């Protein structure tokens, strides 16, 4: 066959072959392929031969062709002898350098303890609401509203349908189940104890009276949710009118045994007899719903049962084969023609959220439940990882810093024939050994500290040591730490050139020095950020707790108005006022520190603009309320018994006047619902809620005959005990069917900041940990640096350097580092803290001193750490350091 030029196989395929094929095989393989190609050109033609060539090249992509022949004599890469040897060396290094080992193990185990606690906490958080057998088909209904360009969302499902009847609205869940085949079960749920109007409710059997917190739920409730029934009937527990399911605790309180409670009658709020149909196991902390009893929904529909709020929620259980998306559409279509409570121009849409997600994602963003506790879970997980990384950085820093000490060892190893891989294995092994020690220490510490942690978080977490998830986590933690801490040192140390290290040349490069400094700097950035967070959070918490609210919250007690307290209010007031320890008594329809109720529609006033949209906090009080609370009046006068017309008078706060746009408020008429009257005075703005909320418009009138609300008692300073005794005595006489229960306003007010208090404690703990870990690292670096420069220091001293000079010499570099860290940390922390403060309507200012303090603290702590070592080296006798050469 004659060709003008030699036929060639495709070049790219040959290149590919050259790239992957092991060099020792390449020649023969390439030769064979080439020969075969030439042969095939003659047999089947160029095109086909080229194709076959490519197939052949690809066919050689197999381990035998790719695997490189090892250059050294192949020994198994981890034989027993080597392992033993590595272990011995690791232990020797550990023991020889006690301080460094201690710093490493202590730092790592602190980081791990932190991780472990957060892991336990996150596990616990994620476990909430996950125990229900039907959890995959359980959903919660929420509503997204588009109105006036704004999107809002809520879980509330009191939808008024075509009949317009409230009872019809209460039947939403039942109707839904009836009309939509995809829904197997549906139930409404409402608590009796939450804000705005909730409270523990009173139950009585014979002479046993207790207040307990519970809820109302539909007949499907126990069929959908897996709460254990210990006595009675799960199917029909909440089916009938006046049926009641109670917890084991409540059953034991009233009837001694759960079985003994079934079929018994119990008096509710002294107005209704309910029959106990089932006893369920006490609700565990795994459940986001908390209740000691459940009143059947049927009872709510026909009897006058109060809700904590009219915004009850609805849960549904889908049929096995039903899809959530389709069911969602069906519900929306079903509801479309029925609802009459949707404002003009507004668009509402119902959605389904997985029941097990509701605990972590309960805040609405853009009308959908997307945020919530999950943010805390993420923040804390992030902090845990960062702290662990900080601990790993210590290890990296110290290991690389000490590299000089081991350079000779590495050189000798390499000369004898150790491959780089086996060196990497050795150093990784050492880091794993340290991590293992740290892990054991941290597990012990965690077990010891767990009870304290539980008190701290208010949870009942146990360390499920024998569960696979814990083991997996511990293994991951070990693996991560060993790798994160060991990788860089292993690669760095194993890269040393034996010739140079054995000559005594120190393989220190600028890159490695900067890397080390960068790591230490990073630690201090984190520490400073956490310190700023601590200062801001504690300042803000202090600010909200100590700000003067506009009224005097000390020495105030309130009790709920129930039973005979309203009819006999005047008698009660008179008798209590005369008792020892009591300064004053009055009433209000809302607890003064947390007014939950807001209305827009029912409030009208003189010259109200058509488009006015002012949300009022309405409250009705007694005549002495202003005096009792010590409120300031800026214009007009307060309510007074002297004016007969004051039962129809109103007072506003300044904010209300501003938002209503009233020029001359005094004397203008206002109306609330069907009550109309004139404004007699303006109150100076005071905080009616926590400082998360701005001061809202307030409208106050006098009503001393409301069946709800609270009686507020001001006790004489320092006589709280006496006052309580007096109160209880009068209470028992006047309201014998209700147990005496009271709250302190200042304590309840503090409870509004429980989240912030936890945040403050946590950030303090984290900042402390971060500082300790970074200082350990810094100490290690300084010690190393001092050790390195022993001779230099000796010579300097001999030549006349003072102790101060030496300290300066050793600490200068580190102080610069902290300055740089501060410059990075300040804006970062400023940004995050600014965002956090947006949770509050009233915030402290992010002033420069906060950052200054954090920076100064970091500087001072670092300086102290450095000085401990620096002074030691500085005062050492130069003779000792110089005599050996």
């Amino acid at each position, binding site marked *: 066959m004659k060709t003008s030029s030699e036929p060639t196989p495709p070049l790219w395929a040959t290149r590919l072959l050259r790239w992957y094929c092991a060099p020792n095989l390449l020649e023969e393989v390439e*030769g*064979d392929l080439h020969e*075969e190609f030439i042969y095939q050109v003659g047999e089947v033609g160029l095109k086909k031969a080229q194709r076959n060539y490519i197939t*052949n090249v690809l*066919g*050689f992509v197999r381990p*035998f062709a790719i695997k490189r022949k090892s250059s050294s004599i192949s020994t198994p890469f981890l034989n027993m002898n080597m392992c033993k040897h590595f272990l011995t060396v690791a232990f020797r290094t550990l023991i020889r350098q006690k301080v460094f080992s201690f710093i490493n193990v202590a730092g790592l185990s602190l980081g791990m303890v932190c991780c472990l606690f957060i892991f336990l906490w996150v596990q616990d958080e994620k476990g909430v609401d996950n125990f229900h057998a039907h959890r995959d088909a359980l959903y919660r209904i929420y509503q997204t509203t588009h109105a006036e360009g704004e999107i809002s969302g809520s879980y509330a499902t009191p939808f008024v349908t075509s009949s317009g009847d409230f009872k019809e609205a209460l039947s939403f869940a039942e109707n839904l189940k009836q009309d939509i085949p995809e829904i197997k079960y549906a139930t409404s749920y409402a608590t009796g104890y939450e804000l705005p109007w909730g409270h523990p409710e009173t139950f009585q059997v014979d002479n046993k009276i207790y207040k307990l917190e519970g809820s109302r739920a539909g007949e499907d409730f126990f069929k959908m949710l897996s709460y254990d029934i210990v006595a009675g009937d799960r199917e029909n527990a909440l089916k009938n009118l006046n049926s009641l399911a109670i917890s084991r605790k409540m059953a034991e309180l009233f009837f001694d045994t759960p079985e003994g409670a079934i079929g018994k009658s119990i008096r509710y709020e002294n107005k209704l007899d309910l029959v106990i149909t089932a006893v369920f196991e006490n609700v565990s902390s795994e459940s986001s719903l908390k209740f000691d009893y459940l009143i059947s929904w049927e009872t709510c529909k026909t009897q006058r049962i109060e809700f904590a709020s009219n915004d009850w929620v609805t849960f549904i259980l889908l049929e096995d084969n039903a899809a959530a998306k389709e069911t969602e559409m069906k519900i929306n279509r079903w509801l479309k023609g029925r609802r009459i409570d949707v404002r003009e121009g507004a668009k509402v849409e119902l959605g389904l959220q997985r029941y097990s997600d509701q605990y972590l994602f309960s805040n609405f963003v853009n009308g959908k439940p997307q945020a919530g506790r999950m943010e805390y879970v993420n923040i804390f997980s992030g902090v845990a990882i960062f702290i662990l990384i900080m601990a790993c950085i210590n290890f990296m820093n110290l290991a690389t810093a000490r590299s000089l000490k081991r350079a000779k060892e590495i050189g000798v190893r390499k000369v004898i024939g150790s491959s780089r891989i086996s060196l990497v294995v050795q150093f990784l092994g050492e880091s794993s050994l340290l991590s293992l020690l740290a892990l054991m220490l941290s597990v012990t510490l965690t077990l010891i500290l767990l009870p304290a942690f539980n008190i701290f978080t208010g949870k009942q977490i146990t360390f499920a040591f024998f569960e696979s998830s814990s083991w997996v986590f511990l293994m991951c933690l070990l693996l991560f730490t060993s790798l994160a801490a060991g990788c860089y040192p292993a690669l760095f140390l194993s890269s040393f050139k034996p010739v140079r290290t054995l000559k005594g040349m120190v393989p220190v490069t600028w890159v490695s020095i900067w890397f080390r400094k960068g790591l230490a700097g990073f630690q201090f950035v984190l520490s400073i950020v956490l310190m700023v967070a601590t200062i801001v959070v504690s300042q803000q918490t202090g600010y909200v707790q100590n700000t003067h609210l506009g009224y005097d919250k000390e020495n105030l007690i309130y009790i709920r108005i129930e039973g005979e307290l309203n009819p006999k209010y005047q008698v009660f007031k008179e008798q209590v006022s005369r008792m020892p320890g009591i300064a004053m008594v009055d009433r209000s329809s809302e607890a003064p520190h947390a007014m939950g109720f807001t209305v827009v529609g029912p409030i009208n006033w003189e010259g109200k603009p058509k488009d006015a949209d002012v949300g009022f906090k309405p409250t009705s009080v007694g005549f002495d309320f202003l005096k009792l609370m010590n409120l300031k009046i800026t214009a007009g006068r307060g309510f007074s018994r002297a004016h007969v017309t004051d039962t129809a008078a109103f007072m506003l706060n300044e904010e209300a006047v501003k938002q209503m746009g009233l020029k001359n408020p005094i004397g203008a008429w206002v109306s609330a619902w069907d009550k109309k009257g004139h404004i007699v005075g303006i109150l100076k703005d005071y905080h009616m809620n926590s400082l998360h909320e701005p001061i809202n418009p307030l409208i106050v009138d006098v009503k001393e005959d409301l069946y709800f609300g609270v009686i507020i008692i001001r006790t004489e300073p320092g006589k709280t005990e006496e006052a309580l005794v007096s109160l209880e005595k009068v209470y028992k006489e006047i309201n014998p069917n209700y147990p005496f229960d009271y709250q302190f306003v200042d304590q309840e007010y503090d409870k509004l900041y429980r989240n912030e208090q936890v945040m403050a404690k946590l950030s303090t703990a984290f900042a402390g940990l971060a500082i300790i870990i970074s200082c350990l690292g810094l100490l290690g670096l300084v010690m190393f640096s001092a050790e390195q420069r022993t001779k230099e220091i000796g010579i300097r001293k001999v030549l006349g350097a003072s102790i101060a000079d030496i300290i300066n010499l050793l600490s200068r570099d580190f102080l610069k580092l902290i300055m740089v860290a501060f410059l990075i940390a300040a804006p970062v922390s400023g940004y995050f803290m600014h965002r956090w403060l947006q949770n509050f309507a009233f915030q402290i200012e992010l002033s420069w001193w906060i950052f200054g303090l954090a920076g100064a603290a970091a500087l001072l702590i670092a300086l102290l750490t450095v000085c401990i070592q620096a002074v030691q080296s500085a005062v050492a006798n130069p003779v000792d350091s110089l005599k050996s050469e």
Partner: protein
Amino acid sequence: VAGHLISKNRNNDLTMKRAHLGEFEEIVLLMVAMLEGNAYGVSIAHEIIAQTNRDVGLNQVHASLQRLEGKGMVASKMSDPTRERGGRRKRLFNITAYGRQTLIDIQTVRTSIWNLLPSSVKPTGI
């Protein structure tokens, strides 16, 4: 040669120990023996195609040769460069004594089993 040394009941033991040969490896080994010093990737592949009429890839042959060499049944050396391969050398394979012994063992076992087959199963001519 070795046939009479192996008693019947030890037969299996020996074959088990010796011949860790796959079917394809056995063929490749036979080809190496057959080609007598001219055995290399391409020639073996072509010979297998010629003798057994089955489709063989060069990669399979190379992989088998590697394994056989690992087991010590073949030995190899590089040839002188040749023009037809663009100046590249071949790796030429030779069967070792051990390889030869293995082939013989396999054959012996086969024959002894064939002899035990009832005549109804035996095809005529064998």
